[in-house]
């Protein structure tokens, strides 16, 4: 699926969703989303994905902003479908790379060596000003990666949740939005039970994100949760038994 969807646009601040999949692995049925925030002439790219989709995403992003104006590229965590293209983006842009301090040293395995371009996030999170508005990096550790952050955009009120809220689905539609939450849980459950650390961690994250006024939750895989469904998802995630809660089952 090679398309984009404007999630928010007030004339000066825009959030765009892309869905580029690695077509060589289509059989694995894991749709991947990439996001771009454009505020005035500042670009902020979120989880740009693997090296295999770099070219397509580069071209798609160029439709919305001059690539040299991408000031920040954020990786919610270290996985190849999130950060695998760091070397390509480091060559093609002058952007700073924002990630958990835990993963900085691993980036050379993706062919990246310019650590002066990294803004490493402390465990407790941080905030960053784009041109006028702030984005908040919210700790989401062990959900699933040990150094993991969600991103909240104060202007659009969108929570970019990384793997939290990810659904294991193919990507057939133009815009992927949850329409029936109850029905959608069957795509969520297996992934979250196995990938997320524990209910204690889920609750800590829900408590954290409840401090923000959330209009949409935009995960890195699968469908976007809008208003009501976002609230339903947070309720569901707060009660989820996963990871170490299911230790008897796993071992």
């Amino acid at each position: 699926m090679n398309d984009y969807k404007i999630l928010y646009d007030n004339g000066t601040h825009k959030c765009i969703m892309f869905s580029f999949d690695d077509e060589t692995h289509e059989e694995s049925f894991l749709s991947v989303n990439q996001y771009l925030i454009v505020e005035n002439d500042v670009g902020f790219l979120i989880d740009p994905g693997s090296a295999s989709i770099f070219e397509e995403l580069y071209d798609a992003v160029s439709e919305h902003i001059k690539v040299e104006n991408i000031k920040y590229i954020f990786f919610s965590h270290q996985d190849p479908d999130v950060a695998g293209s760091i070397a390509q983006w480091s060559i093609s842009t002058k952007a700073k790379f924002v990630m958990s301090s835990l993963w900085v040293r691993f980036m050379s395995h993706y062919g990246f060596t310019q650590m002066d371009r990294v803004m490493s996030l402390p465990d407790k999170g941080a905030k960053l000003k784009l041109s006028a508005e702030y984005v908040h990096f919210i700790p989401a550790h062990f959900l699933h990666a040990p150094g993991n952050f969600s991103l909240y955009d104060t202007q659009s009120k969108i929570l970019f949740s990384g793997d939290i809220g990810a659904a294991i689905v193919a990507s057939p539609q133009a815009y992927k939005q949850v329409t029936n939450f109850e029905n959608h849980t069957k795509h969520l459950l297996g992934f979250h039970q196995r990938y997320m650390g524990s209910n204690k961690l889920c609750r800590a994250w829900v408590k954290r994100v409840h401090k923000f006024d959330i209009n949409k939750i935009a995960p890195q895989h699968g469908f976007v949760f809008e208003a009501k469904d976002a609230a339903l998802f947070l309720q569901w995630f707060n009660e989820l038994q996963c990871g170490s809660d299911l230790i008897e089952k796993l071992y």
Partner: protein
Amino acid sequence: MQNLKVLYVEDNPTLLYKAGELLKKFFSHIDLALDGEKGLELFKKQHHSIVITGINMPKMDGLTMAQQMQTLAPQTKIIIVSASTDKQMLVKSIELGVFRFLEKPLNPKELSHALNEVVAEIKHELHTKLFQTHLKHIFKHQSALIILLHDNKIVLANEPFLNFFHCQSLSECHENIVSLEEQFLAHPQFLYNHENIKALDVLQENPQKPYNVKMKNSDAQTLHFIVKYQSIPEQEHYGILSFDDVTQMNFLTHFTNEHNIQEEAITDSKLLFEYLDLLSRNHADIQLYNFYKGLSISNKANIMQTNDDSITITTNYYQQKAMQIEGNVLIVSEALPHSIKANTIEHISFEQQSVTLSSLHFVKTSPVTRKTIRVVPQKEQHVSLFIEDAVFSEKLLVEDISLDAVKLKFNLLPPGLHTGKKVRLEIVLEQNKQAFTINADAEVLRKQEFEESFSVVFMFQSFKKSDLVTYITKRQMALIREIKGLRNE
């Protein structure tokens, strides 16, 4: 202070209800109790900051309850409300350290006044506690100016800060200093409010990072400081700013907008080491740069020790290897007027992750100004240069290549290759036995002449960049492997 917990204990249910309603206007968490025993029970669960109580109550009187609360949590603020002015009772109240004594019938104005006072006192205690807890971690120097900020407002300041602005008290400080960041004066490379830069925002977004600022004291003397912001864990709106006076070093003139500074201007190595020592005392991060076959390798480091002519730093293994291979390193910090080059690697300890450097001096070039990733290709390559559609037949060599430009080595320089000249380049590079072809229009940016050769930099004009991105990525990966492969040499 809406988040403070308040307990009201009163045996008259009507009075208790009314007082509860009044308190709701000030505080979000109110607990009510009809006797001392119940009050104490609630206190043990909720640890209230403020307790307002009557005296004569069933089960347990107010003073006994207050005494037990003070034993459990001495910082609790207790307000007594009583119709009795019995001397013995008053003495006991004083002994207990009761915050206020209010007479019955309770006057809402008086209560509101007492509450404002008690909240101010709690705030002050919190500020002092934060200040004292974090002060010692920041600077050992008593001479540093230190302030505690709450939502960008100065809520505490040490003596040197007050003296600097010639203030007797904090309130005088508020009158004299309308905006702290406006005190930071304009100076090249310094932190001050201009264009889109808000100095306090920059400091808060980069905790622990040292910046240079210039301020005028009350005697109109301009002083140079290193300023650093420290956030306070769990206290989102609070932070500490510390200013270290470095005027004596006389470095102001070395901070200029000119990149091609006079290297000779700073020959005083004592000053250089004093500056490094200052960064070390401030636990400031420095950034190291090495270039392996064009590839920029950059990591953070800390200065562990400064001696008369050497410094010992700690950094990661990868940077250590790069330093070992190159035999030198560039040191960069925003607090430094220029980059420093260390030309001698005295000692490397991979176990301690430390490196001792000497032969340090300021340099003209800054690696930070290098905007693109350049790599030196493998020898397997072929370059064709077309000038006015005619191919230049001599052998050419790619010295390094980036997405924006290529540097070619010529043994013979063709005529007409002047700056701005438009040419066409066909470059075939090989990596991992895969060939990459770059066909691009280009323009001569600059030429450099050496004893037996010439180097010419060509800026690419228009071409499909994706192949070159792939090539540079692969080359970069290969160079990383090379560095790692040199591990046991």
